[in-house]
């Protein structure tokens, strides 16, 4: 008993000081919510063509300063709508969104950058002008502007193509133009809406590495939407799994990867476990999207035939 008392008193006494005395030494990113969503939902009002549609929510989510957050979900679950709400491109019909403590409604706040799935490069501008376009609303000296554009082009590996037009580049390179155009503005929150969706698997893996490198170098918060479970498992600190429509956060999976990582994490045994957990959560939702509740293994092939 006499030995038990100091033993039970000791752990809190020894566990507390390191946690509070040197939080900056911790490997974890500082836990300040950069963007927070409270009860966010989106219902599209009824029109002559269709009845009202509850597309999304309610969703509660805090994006921590500097983290890499990925979202996976069945098609049509409202992933892109969620991204547009965070960006201020679409207003939520329920709940509230804040970015750095200020409410977000239907304007994109300063400090937020978005890269879309579709090619958003301006075909009438050269690569260099495309990237510089990102700085239109930023008051900078000519030299600083030039330097930032040059740096962004260097980061995405397009320095040799500064004078080319997007039509002369491949799809992956055009997507990198858009990433560079976002980077020059030095956003504190980068929203990526399936930016590699249209690229082939190898290019996607390499682009993933580039995004990881950018994330490390810029210390921005990254919010990535993807339909590829392996991409989410490879890139993110946390992965939100969304349910079928109306999309809700069904699970948030912590990957526990070190900040200094690259696509080789796919070789680790935990990678398989994370992907498996994501699929376990998602399979049922994906079947719901296809109009099936669940199918026994023997029926699965029949279901697939039925759906296709």
């Amino acid at each position, binding site marked *: 008993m006499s030995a038990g008392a100091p033993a039970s008193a000791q752990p809190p006494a020894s566990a507390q000081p390191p946690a509070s005395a040197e939080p900056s030494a911790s490997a974890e990113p500082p836990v300040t919510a950069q963007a927070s969503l409270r009860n966010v939902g989106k219902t599209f009002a009824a029109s002559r063509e269709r009845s009202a549609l509850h597309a999304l929510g309610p969703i509660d989510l805090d994006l921590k300063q500097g983290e890499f957050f990925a979202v996976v979900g069945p098609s049509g679950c409202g992933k892109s709508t969620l991204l547009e709400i965070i*960006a201020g*491109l679409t207003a939520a019909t329920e709940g509230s969104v804040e970015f750095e403590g200020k409410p977000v409604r239907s*304007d*994109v706040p*300063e400090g*937020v*950058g*978005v890269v*879309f799935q*579709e*090619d*958003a490069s*301006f*075909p*009438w501008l050269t690569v260099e002008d495309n990237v510089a*376009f*990102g700085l*239109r*609303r930023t008051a900078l000296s000519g030299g600083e502007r030039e330097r930032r554009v040059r740096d962004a082009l260097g980061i995405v590996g397009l320095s040799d193509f500064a004078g080319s*037009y997007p*039509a*002369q580049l491949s799809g992956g390179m055009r997507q990198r133009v*858009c990433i560079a155009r976002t980077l020059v*503005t030095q956003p504190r929150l980068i929203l990526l809406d399936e930016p590699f969706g249209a690229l082939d698997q190898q290019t996607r893996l390499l682009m993933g590495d580039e995004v990881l490198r950018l994330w490390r170098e810029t210390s921005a918060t990254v919010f990535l939407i993807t339909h590829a479970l392996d991409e989410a498992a490879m890139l993110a600190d946390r992965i939100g799994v969304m349910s079928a429509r109306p999309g809700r956060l069904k699970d948030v999976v912590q990957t526990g990867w070190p900040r200094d990582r690259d696509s080789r994490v796919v070789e680790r045994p935990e990678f398989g476990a994370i992907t498996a957990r994501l699929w376990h959560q998602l399979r049922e939702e994906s079947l719901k999207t296809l109009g099936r509740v669940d199918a026994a293994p023997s029926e699965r092939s029949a279901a697939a035939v039925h759906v296709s």
Partner: protein
Amino acid sequence: MTRLRLYRFAVIAGAIALLEILCLARVIDPITMQAPHLVLRDFLRLLASGRMNAAIVKTMANTVLAFGLAAAAGLLLAVLLQRRRALRMTLDPLFATYYAVPVFAFYPFFIVVFGLGDLPQILIAFMLGVVAVIVNTLNGLDRVPAVLLKTARVLRLGPVETALRVTLPAAAPHIVGGLKLAVAYAFIGIIGSEFILSRGGIGYEINFAYNNFDNAVMYPLILLILLASVAFNSLLSRWERTLHARRGR
């Protein structure tokens, strides 16, 4: 491409050569038309004499003015209309039937209201061209990918900057098509009204020469109009080709 160009040149050269032969063989009588080489000689003489300078300046200035007004008003109205869905839906059928209206029928009315000056002529040319610019610009604006508009919002551009820097450049290949029509319509409007009733201009001079059997003036002036119109048009076509080439089409 070069072979096609060669063929095209051959067709035009052949037509001129045929005309030359028909004129020299007196199949076409000199009172009807001069041989092409004489037309060219008279053309150079007429330009050198400088007595058509005032007419040329008047017609060209009015054409450029009418074209500029049609282009500016057409672009502005198209951008505004595209943002007003109800108004757009109301006006769409009117645009579709607009070119069934013979605009020249209003010319006497415009003269009554504005007097026999440049204004009624510019107005006719403007009216002919403006709707072509509106329709083509709207067509182009409708095809601007939504993701470019979202990008403009993410980059926090205002409505004017979005129109000038994103939507209009994105729609440029369609807009050039409208501008090419507007150039042709501007020439038709100005020269046509000068023909009908005017106190000067190339159209007026052609009509005057025609009434006086003055082939040495009439044909060179027709040639002048032809060259001016083709020159304007090729300038726009060149721009159009550059736009398409940049976009890899």
